[in-house]
């Protein structure tokens, strides 16, 4: 993996300008896709555009948005992902539920859960920045460990009975109109802060610098290890916060809360034009992509598709959004297609046949029973 990263990094250096062009086009592409999906959704249901429906639907994606913000930073700076975000979310929400069920005041439990999120992020950060372990392996291990702690805390029980002052975090509306969800405002405020920090401050420039060339950034005096630490702590804190919002929205906590959400978080971030090889991407892109994913999920919900079947589309989106720039690069290399030799053509043909046979068997065998 490290090798492909360094390869794409060197390729990117020579192509900085054209990549910037792609980026501009990327955000345009997102706007076009959003328009198309909106039109399809309107066709699906005439009530889709009613403000009440839209605002209620928006509530369902705010945890996702909150977790995306630090993930954007991590992908830009480290060209890697934090796989443990959904597990931190589960552990912290479960911890809060456990404390609350044992008679602790809800707001003390909330503070404790946020502190646990910071600690969980700090452990990830310490192992990555100071023990120098690859982030993927660390967060894969803590993905199991933190989720395991959630199960260890709550077992097969659910914490419930939260006071209304707490569930307001996920269910409440601002004002009398019951139009603007509180969680939407919370997300927008956080997104604004994260966007301003990324695009206007020294810290934000550090992130791009590290993402473009970690060695060079280190030699120019960027405190790389401290930045890494901050990123993972931030990720832990925001995941805990997202966990609280989700628990408030559900009104209860089970240890499997948010299971598998890391996939959607990563997909949404990468789809926003934040290149997985690091160093590029904007907060606007990330937010547009959240909007797109929200609309796609909402639309599929209108079509009565199961969550797991919706995941097929999310998975496809993830792969395609990374595959597209790579295919573009391949085609832009002059004569790439004419250089194919016989054995390569044979391999591709065999692959296509194998896929076709699989699909045929998939359909045929299911029609037997």
């Amino acid at each position, binding site marked *: *993996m*490290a090798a*492909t990263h360094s390869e*794409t990094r060197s390729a990117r250096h020579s192509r900085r300008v054209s990549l910037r062009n792609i980026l501009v086009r990327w955000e345009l592409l997102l706007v076009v896709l959003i328009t198309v999906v909106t039109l399809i959704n309107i066709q699906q249901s005439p009530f889709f555009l009613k403000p009440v429906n839209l605002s209620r639907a928006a509530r369902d994606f705010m945890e996702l948005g909150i977790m995306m913000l630090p993930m954007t930073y991590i992908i830009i700076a480290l060209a890697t*992902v934090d796989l443990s975000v959904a597990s931190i979310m589960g552990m912290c929400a479960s911890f809060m539920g456990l404390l609350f069920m044992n008679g602790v005041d809800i707001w003390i439990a909330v503070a404790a859960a946020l502190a646990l999120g910071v600690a969980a992020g700090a452990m990830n950060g310490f*192992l990555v920045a100071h*023990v*120098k*372990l*690859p982030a*993927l*392996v*660390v967060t*894969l*291990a*803590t993905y*199991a*460990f*933190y*989720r*395991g702690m959630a*199960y*260890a805390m709550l*077992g*097969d029980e659910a914490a419930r009975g939260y006071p209304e002052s707490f569930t307001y975090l996920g269910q409440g509306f601002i004002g009398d109109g019951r139009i603007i969800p509180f969680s939407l405002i919370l997300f927008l405020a956080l997104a604004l802060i994260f966007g301003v920090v990324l695009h206007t401050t020294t810290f934000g420039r550090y992130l791009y610098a590290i993402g473009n060339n970690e060695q060079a950034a280190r030699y120019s005096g960027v405190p790389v290890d401290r930045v890494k630490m901050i990123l993972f702590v931030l990720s832990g804190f925001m995941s805990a916060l997202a966990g609280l919002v989700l628990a408030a929205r559900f009104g209860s906590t089970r*240890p499997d809360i948010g299971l*598998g959400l890391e*996939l959607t978080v*990563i*997909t949404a971030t*990468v789809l926003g034009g934040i290149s*997985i*090889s690091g160093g590029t991407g904007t907060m606007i892109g990330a937010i547009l992509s959240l909007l797109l994913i929200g609309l796609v999920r909402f639309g599929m919900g209108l079509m009565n598709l*199961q969550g*797991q*079947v*919706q*995941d*097929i589309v*999310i*998975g*496809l989106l*993830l*792969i395609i959004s*990374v*595959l597209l720039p*790579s*295919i573009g690069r*391949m085609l832009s290399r002059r004569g790439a297609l004419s250089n194919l030799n016989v054995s390569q053509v044979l*391999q591709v043909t065999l*692959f296509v046949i*194998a*896929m076709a046979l*699989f699909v045929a*068997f*998939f359909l045929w*065998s*299911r029609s*037997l*029973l």
Partner: protein
Amino acid sequence: MVIGKERTATSLGLMSILVRFREVGILFFTVLLIIVVSILSPVFLTAHNFRDILLNISILVIVGLAQMMVIITRGIDLSVGSMIGLVAMMVAFTVVAFPGMNPLFALLLGIALGAALGSLNGAIIAWGKVPPIIATLGTLSIYRGLVFLYSRGDWINSFEMPMGFRQLSKGTPLVIPNLILFAAAVAILVFLFLRYTQTGRDIYAVGSNPQAATVAGIRVDQVIFIVYVISGILCGMAGVLWASRFESAQTNTALGFELQTVAGPVVGGVNIFGGSGTVIGVVLGSFLLGTINNALTIVKISPFWQLAVQGLLILLAVIVDSAILRRLQTATKQGNR
């Protein structure tokens, strides 16, 4: 690295000592665990329980070896659990539709289906240049979604499955259950493949140093493609055995299994930076995981702790590994001076 003939004499000596030390270390830890748990509970150290542990880790060993080969090339395959689930589901439905089918044909069918799924991973990663973690995270949810599409809410129960298919994993013509024999056969085949075939050697070369491998004329893309196809093949086999062993095919078959398949090799000393890993290490690592899970149950620790213990164990193994590796690197540097 243990088979790294191309390395210098000093580092070869050090490496083989380290690797042997590593495997002895796991063995030592396993024996210690067995002794402690045996004192705590008399039912632990029995032939029956030992057989249970081996049965429980057989599928893990098969898929863990696939994961090892992927990790050696600096990749990771997170879609293994979904591939197992999808193949188990498709083969189970087919077997129920054709009860007279030879179980070995069902196994071949599963292998073919797995190869197709693996080749999609391989194509996206080797040809499309998508990072393995992203590609297989995507196919993890695509394949699992296909399981749901395929099942349409139905599942296969134990009584629907033909006897012959159930016997595929449970039969004991050679005293030892077939499932354990399958795992042993796969382990031996993978060992021979990695040690004596050109492609097997190329897998280590690509993982040790992709640039050098390219310069040496190895077709890196092709090796990476093949590794993911092998992963699919072994997952296809595992899917059939899973359906046969648990006598069912449900939408959540092997859900989350990818984690254990990474844990087994990593605990067994497969280097997460690629380039090294041994069959015996994976077998020992999987055996340690299996023993721990079995011990947790026997000592009556809540099963809800299992996941946390597994996560902690991977972390520990990775930290120990990197510490040893760093000491070794400074040692070889001084040795060369």
